[in-house]
């Protein structure tokens, strides 16, 4: 971390991880090699993982705007909470391989890579999914 040119700060939408991330941001901006040499500062970006849009909507967890206000970094990606992440870890396949196979997290990681490389990709999976026609019809 001391030698880093870029830093991706990972946080969950909860206060404890945001506060730790905040501390880390301060640490990187003051104690990194770039800071010590007086070079261009480390480019930091924010990655929110395990984001649940429904719960954020209900106020049960921090929302993206809350986190951004708290940390003041550019958002590089929001990874939705997904059951497939655990399966992928156990299988030894990174989640991004599920891109285009109907998994939100894979697509979100792929978008994040594009954004990191400079593309201007709109955020996906950050608003609650609209309930489908049948769900609306029959209830949950």
């Amino acid at each position, binding site marked *: 971390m001391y030698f*880093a040119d870029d830093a991706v700060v990972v946080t*969950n939408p909860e206060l404890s991880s945001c*506060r*730790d991330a905040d501390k880390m941001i301060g*640490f990187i901006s003051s*104690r990194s090699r770039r800071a010590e040499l007086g070079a261009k500062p480390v480019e930091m970006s924010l*990655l929110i993982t395990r984001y649940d849009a429904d719960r954020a909507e209900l106020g049960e967890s921090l929302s993206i705007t809350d986190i951004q206000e708290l940390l003041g970094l550019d958002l590089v990606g929001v990874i939705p909470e997904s059951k497939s992440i655990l399966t*992928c870890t156990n299988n030894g396949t*990174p989640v*991004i391989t599920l891109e285009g196979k109907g998994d939100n997290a894979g697509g979100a990681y792929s978008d994040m890579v594009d954004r990191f490389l400079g593309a201007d990709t709109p955020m996906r999976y950050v608003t609650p999914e609209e309930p489908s026609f049948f769900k609306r019809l029959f209830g949950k």
Partner: protein
Amino acid sequence: MHVIWGSDSVCDFRFKFKFTTALDNKMLQSIRTTAGRSAGAYGPQLAAQRFKSTKSKCELESLNGTSLKNNPNPCRKTAKKHTIITNPKAQATTISAVPTTPKTTIPHAPAPSAASMQAAHTANTAHKLPPPDSDPTMGRIVAITSGKGGVGKTTSAASFAMGIASKSNTVCVVDFDIGLRNLDIHLGAERRVVFDFINVLNEECSLQQALIKDKRVEGLSMLAASQTKDKDSLTVEGVERVLNELCKKFDYVILDSPAGIESGAKVSERLSMVSSLKN
């Protein structure tokens, strides 16, 4: 008499010679022509060797920054330089064992310890990372970090690295969570780990031996963390040397940091300690 002469000749390699002895103009002229010719025609290493063979009393110091910049194959040359300049003992003996020519007297002969210290310093700078943004051919170091543990750093690092590698970049992802390696499981390479980061750091194997190529994506490699050693095995100089090597090979070097700020703080502390020792 002190004569300091710098030459920005053909290969932009600068030598600084300090003559601690009184030299007459004729001898100075002959040295100049020898150095100029050899630096121009054969490159810096041969010039250095030739200089040793002329047995004039000079301390040879290469200014590292300029030499690395225009170097087409920095890895090989720094290795060579290491063998030539950075053998403090040999250099010290050359200096002390050379029979003095009648015209030169040494009022303040350079102490061998000073010479060896300088040589050691040159050795250190050869493995150092160049200043940030100074060399566009070097890969970028991306740290995946968070204060708290369990937020998905390793998961993100694995996916991020694979994503960047699939966009036709060369990527190496390094597991810095020494003692608790996990990244190899995320990438499905746990059975392929033979050598790890600490082995490379302690020079028990080459970097090439420790790099594990991913079986799915071309251009993605991994450097696993050690499970038997702890964070105390990391040294600033060692990490810098390995990162320097990695940056020469890859477009992106992704570091999967451990949770907490303790290890990073320690690294910074050590660095300030080292720099104060140098001063």
